[in-house]
């Protein structure tokens, strides 16, 4: 791939971003663009897209940060052999994510949702030579995949209850869903989908694991975009599902626990990237908690914090990449005093870190103030929510200090290799993000008008316009902010003591990831045990089980049904009678012969006899097929005979097999008797006979049915034939190297 071409995705993404940006004005004014195409008409499923405030804010984040990430990736992995693959996967992910956040049909949304799951799996496992990356990818896939299935069930239930799959119509239904009988299962299923995707407790463990992905991937998927899909889903469903005790408390409790627990775990880490991963989980918990707040301020807090977090977190992730590249490590304990050697990296880290800690005049400050205001206004328990937010925010201040200050602080430079700033292609993106955090903090009106308010209107329709301000006067949120800074400073000073305490093995019980791994391992053991037991690989066993089951089914039906099993007397012509006797005699020979070849020929006679009987009843096509198949069976078995060991001389009588065979044969005979007892219904035959020539221009009705009337069945059957052939060839040639040349 030519080097210049690797920048193409970044350029395209930037163009997409600009396109979304020019829709901001119309959307803020209430003109919401919509597109839709019918997809599955019978089920009322459409491929529908809609760009309201909530969709637009996410689309802008996905495309804007996407453009920066694509540029960063092209430079970060310059000359890497798998750069093309990485860019392709990232582009596929970006498309899925854009589809997810703009979808207006529940099924459309789900399809793109699964698209992000699959691309995320491939991206986390990008370094697939490493066991760790493969395990992390599988873990992320299983957790989010199971959640995705729950979500699908939830969305289908919503569709049935609401009578439509259009999300914009569902949002207008008021409390139709909240009062429906299926409300509780719907909420549980939808929240399962959202909580697994957005790494809420107890599913939080996959996100830190997913840090096995390359740094730009983590910055994109696992901070700014994909993990927020759960938040997006909850926000999107809020008008239709929100407002109930179950919704409010479910979100508040899980969000709060996730938020506090993740910020504790963040302080435990020494790998900067892992630390950022836990702070991301914390932010996701906070967003969930405030979405459960069900108040105007909480919703404004969510909309603002979404933007704030995406900017500083993506910038910080990319900064960690810069440190990794420029100084050779991500371990905070091996970094220090880099202010002089990496001034640009330090600038970015400082700008983003101050926003993360929530210092004025950064946008992070406004975000934090709004969070406190929202916490005090929540419907559930303001004191609980505010305390949880205060604790988490204080730990966030400390974590911001660890990421943004400690690598650069101190007189003596400390790094594994001589540190220097990476090239402009790498730092320009994070710099832009970090500066935007400052710019929006100084001019919050822009953000309020074009982004926050349209988003709030989508989540909670009918909310009055909200102004964003840096200075709110002296009030409770400001006091809480000051307490946060104080507490955060103390935590930062005590970071070594805290880390040591948290890293004691007794701390925190059993990690969720360990439970997950143990569960997965025992499931695999069970699967391998059951496969070994059921699939023993012995043909005789398979045949015995198959025929035993068939026999039981046939006799079961005979016992239930009231059909007469007494054969009706019927004259049999002489020639068919001779053929039947021939068949019976040949079958008997197969049983008693000591020679495989002799048995094979006798089996051929059985087949030929059956073909003869077909011809007596003028089923000539079936007879020809039967004869040809018999010939092939004899040929194939004759080839295989060479490989089989010699037959034992002693006669081997197996009573069990004899019983199964007899019961099966008699059972089938009774089936034939029972079928013949019913009068023959000629309607189908007459239809085909009448329609064959005029409609399909063929006089051979059997063939016309096969290739025209019921051609779809035939297509399926030939596909099965081919698949069986591929499987047989694979099984026969497994582990063998084919020798060229004739046999000796």
């Amino acid at each position, binding site marked *: 791939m030519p080097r210049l071409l690797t920048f193409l995705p970044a350029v395209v993404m930037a163009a997409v971003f600009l396109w979304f940006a020019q829709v901001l004005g119309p959307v803020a004014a209430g003109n919401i663009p919509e597109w839709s195409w019918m997809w599955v008409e019978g089920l009322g499923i459409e491929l529908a897209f809609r760009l309201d405030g909530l969709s637009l804010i996410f689309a802008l984040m996905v495309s804007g940060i996407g453009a920066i990430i694509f540029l960063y990736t092209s430079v970060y992995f310059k000359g890497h052999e798998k750069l093309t693959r990485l860019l392709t996967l990232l582009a596929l992910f970006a498309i899925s994510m854009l589809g997810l956040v703009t979808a207006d049909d529940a099924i459309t949304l789900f399809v793109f949702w699964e698209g992000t799951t699959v691309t995320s799996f491939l991206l986390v496992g990008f370094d697939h030579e490493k066991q760790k990356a493969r395990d992390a990818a599988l873990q992320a896939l299983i957790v989010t995949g199971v959640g995705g299935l729950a979500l699908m069930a939830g969305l289908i239930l919503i569709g049935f209850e609401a009578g439509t799959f259009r999300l914009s119509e569902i949002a207008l239904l008021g409390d139709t869903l909240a009062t429906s009988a299926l409300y509780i299962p719907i909420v549980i299923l939808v929240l399962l989908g959202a909580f697994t995707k957005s790494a809420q407790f107890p599913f939080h463990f996959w996100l830190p694991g997913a840090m096995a992905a390359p740094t730009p991937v983590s910055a994109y998927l696992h901070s700014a975009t994909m993990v927020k899909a759960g938040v997006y889903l909850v926000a999107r469903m809020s008008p239709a599902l929100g407002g109930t005790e179950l919704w409010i408390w479910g979100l508040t409790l899980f969000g709060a626990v996730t938020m506090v627990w993740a910020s504790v775990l963040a302080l435990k880490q020494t790998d900067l990237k892992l630390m950022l991963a836990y702070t991301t989980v914390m932010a996701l918990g906070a967003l969930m908690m405030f979405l459960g707040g069900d108040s105007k301020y909480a919703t404004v807090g969510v909309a603002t914090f979404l933007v704030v977090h995406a900017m500083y977190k993506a910038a910080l992730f990319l900064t960690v990449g810069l440190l990794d590249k420029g100084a050779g490590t991500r371990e905070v304990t091996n970094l220090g005093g880099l202010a002089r050697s990496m001034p640009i990296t330090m600038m970015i880290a400082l700008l983003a870190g101050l926003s993360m800690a929530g210092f004025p005049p950064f946008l992070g400050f406004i975000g934090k103030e709004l969070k406190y205001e929202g916490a005090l206004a929540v419907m559930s328990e303001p004191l609980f929510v505010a305390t949880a937010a205060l604790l988490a925010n204080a730990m966030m201040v400390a974590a911001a200090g660890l990421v943004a200050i400690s690598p650069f602080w101190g007189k003596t430079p400390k790094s594994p290799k001589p540190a220097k700033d990476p090239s402009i292609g790498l730092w320009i993106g994070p710099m832009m993000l970090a500066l935007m955090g400052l710019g929006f903090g100084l001019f919050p009106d822009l953000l309020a008008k074009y982004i926050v308010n349209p988003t709030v209107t989508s989540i909670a329709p009918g909310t009055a316009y909200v102004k964003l301000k840096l200075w709110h006067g002296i009030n409770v949120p400001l006091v809480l902010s000051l307490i946060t800074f104080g507490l955060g400073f103390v935590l930062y000073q005590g970071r070594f003591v805290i880390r040591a305490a948290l890293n004691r093995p007794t701390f925190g019980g059993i990690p969720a990831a360990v439970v997950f791994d143990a569960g997965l391992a025992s499931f695999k053991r069970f699967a391998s045990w059951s496969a070994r037991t059921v699939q023993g690989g012995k043909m005789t066993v398979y045949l015995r089980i198959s025929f035993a089951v068939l026999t039981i089914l046939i006799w079961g039906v005979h016992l239930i049904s009231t059909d007469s099993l007494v054969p009706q007397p019927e004259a049999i012509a002489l020639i068919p009678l001779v053929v039947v006797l021939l068949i019976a005699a040949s079958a008997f020979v197969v049983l008693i012969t000591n020679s495989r070849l002799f048995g094979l020929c006798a089996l051929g006679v059985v087949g030929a006899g059956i073909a003869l009987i077909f011809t007596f009843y003028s089923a*000539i*096509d079936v007879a*020809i*097929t039967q004869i*040809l*198949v018999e*010939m*092939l069976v004899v*040929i*194939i078995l004759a*080839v*295989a005979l*060479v*490989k089989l060991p010699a037959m034992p001389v002693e006669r081997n009588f197996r009573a069990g097999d004899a019983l199964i065979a007899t019961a099966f044969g008699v059972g089938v005979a009774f089936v034939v008797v029972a079928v013949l007892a019913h009068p023959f219904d000629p309607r189908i035959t007459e239809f085909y006979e009448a329609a064959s020539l005029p409609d*399909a*221009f*063929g*006089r*051979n009705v*059997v*063939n*016309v049915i*096969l*290739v*025209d009337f019921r*051609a*779809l069945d*035939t*297509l399926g059957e*030939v*596909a099965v*034939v*081919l698949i*069986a*052939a*591929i499987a*047989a*060839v694979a099984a*026969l*040639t497994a582990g*063998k190297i*084919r*020798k*060229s*040349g*004739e*046999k000796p």
Partner: protein
Amino acid sequence: MNSVILRTATRVLVPLLLIVSLLILWRGHNEPGGGFIGGLMAVIAVALYAIAAGPNAARRALRVDPLTIAGIGLLAATAAGLWGVVVDGAFLKGMWPLLTTAPDGSKAGLPVGSVLLFDTGVFLTVLGSVSAILFALEDAVYAHSHREAE
């Protein structure tokens, strides 16, 4: 297998079987026959050749890998189905490009179209799949007997 009778007979029988198999495919729409039966008959020709001259010679005689033949067959059958989609919006709808409708509603011309393509697809799939299994089996047996000889 080294038998003079078999080798001589094969020289006559294989082309004969192949021609008959094509005939059966062609006439299947009106007389007993069709793609499935024709395919089976062609396989028997291939099997006969493989027994007389060895699987490698049979492979060379086929020129194309049997699984590829089967794949082409499945593609042809699917294409016959898509033909109907493109022209008339219905999967597997019979297409008769060489038939014209007379004013009185009766049809005239050659009844050849998507249905024959479909049946040819069935023919090729059966021929390719069964030949592939047969060759793989012969290889396995050959490798087995070769190992025992050592």
